[in-house]
């Protein structure tokens, strides 16, 4: 938007208009948080007991269908929640439109990349 002193406050406030978005972001952030309330304690408790037994035990842990399912769900919810949260932080602090857009895209790619890495790791264990 223009910074000219001739631009009226009403023009600044109305801006480009309300985008009619944001509610789904709000809902998704809360739903993913709810999922994480259950998944994170399970993950921490479960991974600690598995990791104590060394590499073979860890492989066996991921090899269990229940553990693998919950692990992928945990990663999905956590990285998705992280992406939504980082989006809010970027929108809060980065004012320049171009920089903000670039960071928002990178944020999505980064979260998606982490999730795919977890899925691929689980597949690798399962494929032997």
């Amino acid at each position: 938007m223009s910074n000219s002193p001739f631009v009226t406050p009403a023009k600044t406030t109305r801006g480009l208009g309300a985008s009619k978005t944001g509610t789904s972001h709000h809902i998704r952030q809360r739903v993913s948080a709810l999922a994480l309330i259950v998944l994170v304690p399970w993950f921490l408790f479960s991974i600690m007991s598995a990791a104590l037994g060394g590499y073979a035990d860890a492989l066996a842990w991921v090899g269990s269908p229940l553990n693998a399912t919950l692990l992928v769900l945990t990663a999905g919810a956590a990285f998705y929640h992280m992406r939504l949260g980082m989006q809010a932080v970027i929108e809060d602090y980065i004012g320049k439109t171009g920089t903000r857009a670039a960071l928002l895209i990178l944020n999505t790619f980064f979260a998606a990349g982490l999730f795919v890495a977890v899925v691929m790791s689980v597949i690798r264990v399962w494929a032997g």
Partner: protein
Amino acid sequence: MVQLTLPQNSKVQKGKTWPKPQGAKNLREFRIYRYSPEEKGNPRWDTYWVDMDKAGTMILDVLFYIKNTIDPTLAFRRSCREGVCGSCAMNIAGRNTIACTKGFDELPGGVISISPLPHLPVIRDLIPDLTNFYAQHAYVQPFLKTDSPTPEKEWRQSEEDRAQLDGLYECILCASCSTSCPSYWWNGDKYLGPAALLQAYRWLIDSRDEATGERLDDLEDPFKLYRCHTIMNCAQVCPKGLNPAQAIAKIKHMMVERVS
């Protein structure tokens, strides 16, 4: 990038120390933000010594004492001097509030600093530019909107529905809440801020208003509404004891309700 430090020409420098009133026994030190557009140079902190036995009981009384007996050039807004008009909102001892209802006995010990509401352009001394703040209030269309034929006498409302407006209608638009909100500091041009959103909710929840959907349409935006991260500074500082953060949460709830 968000501006975390003041621009060079807004950095506040050490100012003048005004003489102590003669014969005073109960002195208190006040540091007050001074800025005049006619004078060249940065804003400054001036030091005043106030005779608390003669100054009255409220911070607004201190400002009057200074203006009347020490420095007549000190500029500040005031009108009702009883917490109704919201004109004398400023930052007192690090907290936004209105000077007329802030008593000495509520203040911490030591030097008391008084500055204009934060993160707004300063017109002079303790007077900030509130034009954008008022435009945000106008944006939420703070008046009854109806399409039904106007009743002969008045739009009626049940006692329960009227009670929904308690805690909302009391807002005096002093801007203490909006200017205490970090989200408003960083995105004050796009985020409507707690004061405007509290007023928006006041009309959203009014049983007589028929424009609820349109009102929600005008608010549904990542910046206009969803910049609120429930930091709660607004509720902490409101001199009328209102809770804008709760009103904003209720607007978000209405947004969710209409899509689910």
